């Protein structure tokens, strides 16, 4: 075989995606959590200008994709992007680059540092081969859930459990007014009454409290598993609450290990469909081994969304 004219090691994790037309590829860049320094952005612009078509595409998972890159330029593109430490992303049956919202540093709704989590997952699990199908992870900073955690294989959502110091409460009623879930109402003594069964851990009460009488008792991630979109969408369901942020990588690795084992021989099948086949109990028991304090007592199967195709009785 002739000496390859490009370095094939660059292609190992995927990220170079065949386009229509001879010799042309899309180069998907690795942008964990969608955050990028302006210096890096300038470098990408320069590379796109030099080797690309004159535009880039912003992927739906927060990546920048260089368009119309000739495969003969792969090494040069990788080298020049490397001057600003910009790496190429993954594709195929691997752990993908995690997505995340802006997190909690500047966004007043954010409860947890999703950017930090996304970077950590990207460093430790990026490109891990699943053996079966793609594996997507996302981090949402609060229950608004802009990143749509329930349609990822493993989706994290920032959560906070509120605690009231009744002596510090001035009875202003702002918390009860702010609680969109109806978990707080004002009692006859003009202090808030908390109905824990309605709380979704958004922390709005803590954020609005003028005196700091409401504070965070505990903080962590709500974790949903088994979601996906695509041809046959599934909504992921609840497996853990208040998972500490420093356990997120280990938790994903545990889910991945279960998937790798249970999907053996199943072919190109996503995690959610394997859960439907194996039952949620098996995955929940597996996770309970190392995460017993956080795993919920029971859950439900990933929820099928009936998108109504094919139409019944439809003939060609």
């Amino acid at each position, binding site marked *: 075989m002739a000496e390859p004219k490009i370095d094939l090691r660059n292609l190992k994790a995927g990220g170079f995606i065949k386009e229509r037309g001879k010799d042309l590829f899309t180069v998907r860049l690795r942008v964990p959590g969608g955050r990028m320094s302006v210096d890096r952005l300038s470098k990408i612009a320069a590379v796109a200008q030099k080797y690309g078509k004159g535009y880039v595409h912003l992927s739906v998972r927060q990546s920048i994709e260089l368009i119309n890159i000739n495969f003969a330029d792969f090494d040069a593109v990788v080298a020049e992007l490397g001057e600003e430490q910009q790496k190429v992303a993954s594709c195929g049956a691997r752990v993908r680059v995690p997505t995340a919202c802006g997190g909690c540093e500047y966004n*007043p709704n954010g409860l947890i540092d999703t950017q930090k989590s996304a970077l950590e997952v990207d460093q430790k699990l990026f490109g891990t081969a699943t053996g079966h199908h793609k594996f997507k992870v996302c981090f949402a900073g609060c229950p608004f859930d802009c990143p749509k955690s329930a349609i990822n294989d493993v989706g994290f959502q920032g959560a906070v459990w509120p605690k009231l110091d009744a002596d510090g409460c001035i009875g202003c009623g702002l918390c009860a*007014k702010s609680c969109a879930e109806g978990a707080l109402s004002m009692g006859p003594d003009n202090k808030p009454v908390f109905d824990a069964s309605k709380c979704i851990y958004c922390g709005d009460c803590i954020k609005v409290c*003028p005196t700091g009488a409401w504070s965070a008792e505990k903080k962590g991630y709500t974790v949903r598993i088994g979601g996906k979109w695509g041809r046959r969408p599934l909504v992921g369901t609840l497996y853990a609450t208040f998972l500490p942020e420093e356990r997120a990588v280990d938790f994903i690795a545990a889910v991945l290990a279960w998937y790798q084992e249970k999907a053996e021989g199943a072919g190109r099948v996503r995690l959610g469909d394997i859960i439907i086949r194996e039952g949620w109990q098996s995955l929940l028991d597996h996770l309970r081994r190392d995460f017993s304090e956080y795993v919920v007592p029971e859950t439900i199967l990933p929820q099928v969304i009936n998108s109504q195709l094919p139409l019944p009785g439809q003939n060609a």
Partner: protein
Amino acid sequence: MQTIDLRGVTCPTNFVMAKLELEDIEAGTCVEFLLDDGEPVKNVPRSLKDEGHKLLGLQERDGYYVLMLEKGAD
């Protein structure tokens, strides 16, 4: 006490108007804001607290809210 009527003004204009009004008021002074129910009463108090003002109380009046606040130091 000065009353600033923010009824009929939507987010985020109401918050920015509140900020502008507070610029001309001395720290430590109490002010009341009239806010519509819904998004305004949920968002504006929290944003003003974030800016360092002290929220003193909230009262419901006929279909709107009165937020009492003490202007914080710059």
